[in-house]
């Protein structure tokens, strides 16, 4: 078997500018061959920012005194309609981990409603679940599941995740395999850069990807390389990863794993996104909000606080001072409107692909 991981490790070693330039050219050519001059678009739709985990870097962390809400399925539909009017046909449903509010029944209902609206592609990024609990969600029409390991460094993982089911590293690590067993077709993995030394982190991610590609041969894999962004809790990155480092990982991934999708979200700046769009990225979000109800104001009549995951009323004054919306997970860096991002993609000679799936298939 081809040693893709060893190749990847070589490619992320420190290198001079000319070498990086050559990697960029190879990455661009491989992306063009496998994905064409197209860019798949998606939008995140936050269902809930309630969470039972304490994760030191996350805005939704259980003990952060933030305004929280879980949208009703009707409100989720309202948000989805708004995104569909903008053009999105691929929506990623995101939620904190709170099994009481975000249960598998709730998720099934959300997916069913969106499919009934005519949305072809629904993906989920929610707390890891059992294979058996995923099955009804797949049956309801969900196409993909996204789960990031955050950090592959066990020691740092333990330091970052101190309370809640997310403490269990191995349970999370095996989540993509459970997703595959349950029938998800597209599986997204990733690491959150800023927690541990980036080369070791990226290599571990490549090892995971490589193993998954062998075990889960029917799934299409995407990789995300999110970097820590400012969020409630004011956590500061433990290590830095520069734009150049991020670009080098993108090129290395593309060269070592040419058929894998690479996602770049609005966590990154417009200039970096535009720059990388033609050099390996295959999927982008645009115009994103990272708080539930962020697109239409849905759910703002139910804003509240939580103490140890239990609901507490928030004062009218607090709600007013927080702008009458739920707190975001993190601040985005590319706040250009969807149309601007789309025209930029076209200007660069790429066709924005909104629909790349059909409800008829599943």
């Amino acid at each position: 078997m081809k040693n893709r991981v060893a190749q990847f490790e070589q490619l992320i070693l420190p290198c001079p500018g000319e070498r990086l330039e050559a990697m960029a050219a190879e990455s661009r050519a491989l992306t063009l061959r496998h994905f064409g001059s197209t860019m798949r678009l998606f939008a995140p739709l936050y269902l809930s920012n309630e969470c039972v985990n304490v994760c030191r870097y996350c805005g939704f962390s259980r003990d952060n005194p933030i305004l929280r809400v879980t949208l009703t399925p009707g409100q989720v539909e309202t948000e989805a309609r708004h995104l569909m009017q903008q053009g999105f046909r691929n929506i990623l449903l995101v939620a904190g981990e709170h099994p009481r509010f975000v249960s598998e029944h709730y998720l099934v209902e959300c997916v069913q409603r969106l499919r009934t609206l005519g949305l072809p592609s629904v993906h989920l990024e929610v707390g890891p679940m059992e294979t058996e609990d995923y099955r009804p969600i797949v049956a309801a029409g969900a196409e993909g599941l996204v789960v990031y390991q955050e950090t592959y460094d066990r020691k740092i993982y333990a330091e970052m995740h101190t309370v809640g089911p997310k403490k269990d590293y191995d349970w999370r690590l095996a989540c993509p395999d459970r997703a595959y067993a349950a029938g998800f077709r597209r599986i997204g993995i990733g690491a959150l850069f800023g927690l541990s030394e980036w080369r070791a982190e990226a290599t571990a991610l490549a090892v995971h990807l490589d193993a998954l590609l062998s075990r889960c041969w029917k799934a299409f894999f995407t990789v995300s390389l999110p970097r820590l962004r400012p969020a409630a809790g004011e956590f500061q990155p433990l290590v830095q990863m520069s734009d150049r480092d991020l670009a080098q990982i993108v090129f290395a991934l593309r060269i070592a794993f040419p058929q894998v999708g690479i996602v770049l979200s609005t966590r990154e700046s417009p200039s970096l996104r535009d720059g990388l769009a033609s050099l390996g990225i295959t999927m982008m979000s645009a115009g994103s909000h990272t708080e539930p109800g962020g697109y239409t104001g849905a759910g703002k009549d139910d804003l509240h606080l939580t103490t140890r995951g239990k609901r507490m009323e928030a004062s009218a004054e607090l709600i007013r001072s927080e702008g009458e919306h739920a707190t975001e997970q993190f601040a985005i860096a590319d706040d250009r409107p969807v149309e601007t991002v789309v025209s930029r993609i076209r200007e660069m000679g790429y066709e924005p692909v909104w629909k790349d799936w059909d409800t008829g298939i599943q």
Partner: protein
Amino acid sequence: MPSSLVIAGRTIRSRLFMGTGKFSSNEQMRDALDASGAELVTVALRRADLSGKHDPFANILEFIDPKRYLLMPNTSGAMNAEEAVRLCRISAGAGLPKWVKLEIHPDPRYLLPDAVETLKAAEILVKEGFTVLPYINADPVLALRLQDAGCATVMPLGSPIGSHRGIETRAQIEIIIEQARVPVVVDAGLGAPSQAAEAMEMGADAVLVNTAIAVAGDPSRMARAFKSAVEAGREAYEVGIASPGKTAQATSPLTGFLKS
């Protein structure tokens, strides 16, 4: 004049079939189709709007004039027979032609076709009145089985989709061509016009090209180049190409005097 290609009783004016993925815009795709001279054009159903609501965000079909092209939906994305059949039924229900390029590739990395599921789906679709053009690995027995099942063509791959590696399955394709009673279309892996010409010289009835044209610097010009290559290859095949020999053959034969 080169002979015409007939599939399922319909004369097809060009032996170059076109795919519609990977273009940098729908306008560019439309222009490349125009330049290619193709009549048969395949579109991934998953990219198209099948709801009948003319979704402006999934409007690829609006760039393919049904009066000019025979639109052949394909089932790309289907991982098994059941999904492929369902897609075809939805497509027919949406008023698209009942010609389908049947492709079932459960492996998203090399997009190699699943022989078992393809045969299963073909049997069902043929019975339901579809004109089925299955994308297959270059497997001569599978080609015969599909032909027996009533498929209108067989479409063996030269090499994996988008790989530009040309006809790596040459020996198998030669057998398929020799045995076929239906047209043989070499699909996938053709990266250069010379490779398309090679397929035609081998006796393939047509080729299907997508990536090599879609990702070219100038897709319309590349489409024209493929068009010429396909025509040249076919013409040469029909004339008959001399087999290569080891010794020189003088253009003025030494024994020419004996005939006079």
